[in-house]
């Protein structure tokens, strides 16, 4: 017996299973990053006056701005890849999805440069509490980027075979992967100012 509502929406809820699933998962992710943000605020406001180190002392704002732009652009290509599938244009889908994946690689490369430079000049998580929270938050975010890239890579490569047999189901899958990818982008939109600019 097939599990119902994997493709079409359940009439009374209006969504298909995976969409509800990913939103619930994102709700959980909101709480995860929320707890870390909360810890950041607690540690920062709790620090005795003048002892807190600020991001601008150590961090490279232009590089991070570049990364912000890359990640936002990847969000656009991601949503365009979904729209292409909706328009039944598989070729365009592959181009946009490829660009999304490329942007992910670009983001990680830039991040790698940033990390590498800091390690070189001896700025480590244990140096002070700001760097500790910086490395924890960006590291965890980086892991999420990698996770999203694996997902996107699967849907660009082996997973895309499904488009031939069950196009609607595949489009749904890409939409769900997109929701996750946009969330990763969204987290960065908040990480960027709170870590780099303030």
């Amino acid at each position, binding site marked *: 017996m097939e599990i119902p509502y994997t493709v079409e929406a359940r009439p009374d809820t209006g969504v298909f299973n995976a969409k*509800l699933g990913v939103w619930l998962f994102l*709700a959980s992710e*909101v709480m995860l990053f929320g707890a870390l943000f909360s810890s950041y605020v607690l540690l920062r406001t709790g620090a005795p006056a003048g002892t807190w180190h600020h991001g601008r002392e150590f961090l490279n704002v232009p590089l991070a*701005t570049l990364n912000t732009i890359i990640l936002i652009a990847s969000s656009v290509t991601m949503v365009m890849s979904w729209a292409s599938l909706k328009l039944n244009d598989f070729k365009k889908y592959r181009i946009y999805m490829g660009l999304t994946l490329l942007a992910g690689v670009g983001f990680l490369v830039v991040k790698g440069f940033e990390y590498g430079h800091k390690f070189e000049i001896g700025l480590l998580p244990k140096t002070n509490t700001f760097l500790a929270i910086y490395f924890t938050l960006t590291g965890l975010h980086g892991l999420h980027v990698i996770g999203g890239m694996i997902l996107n890579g699967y849907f660009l490569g082996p997973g895309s075979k499904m488009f031939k047999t069950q196009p609607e189901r595949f489009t749904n899958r890409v939409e769900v992967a997109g*929701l996750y990818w946009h969330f990763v982008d969204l987290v960065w939109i908040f990480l*960027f*100012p*709170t870590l780099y600019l303030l």
Partner: protein
Amino acid sequence: MSASDAESIRKQTRAYIVVFVTLMVMTILTVAVSYFHMPVGLAILVALVIASFKGSLVAAVFMHLSHERKLIYWVLLLTVIFFVVLMAIPSLSQWDQRMLR
């Protein structure tokens, strides 16, 4: 896929481009503002307002939250409530400590 559906998708893709441009402008803006060296409180406020605006654009347009089902809204409402509780931890504990002093 019917013609009207395709048309609405095309309309949406135009919206994506507009949002993309807006997000870029906002990113430049938030970086530029940070060079003004405003008082800390104001700087935090401005940065968070811009970030929230950008975040809502991503959520509303890219994640299609602007026209999502009620069920999803309920899930998110619940999350927002508990998120607020979570974010209240630092202020709760420190405000209370200050009252003690």
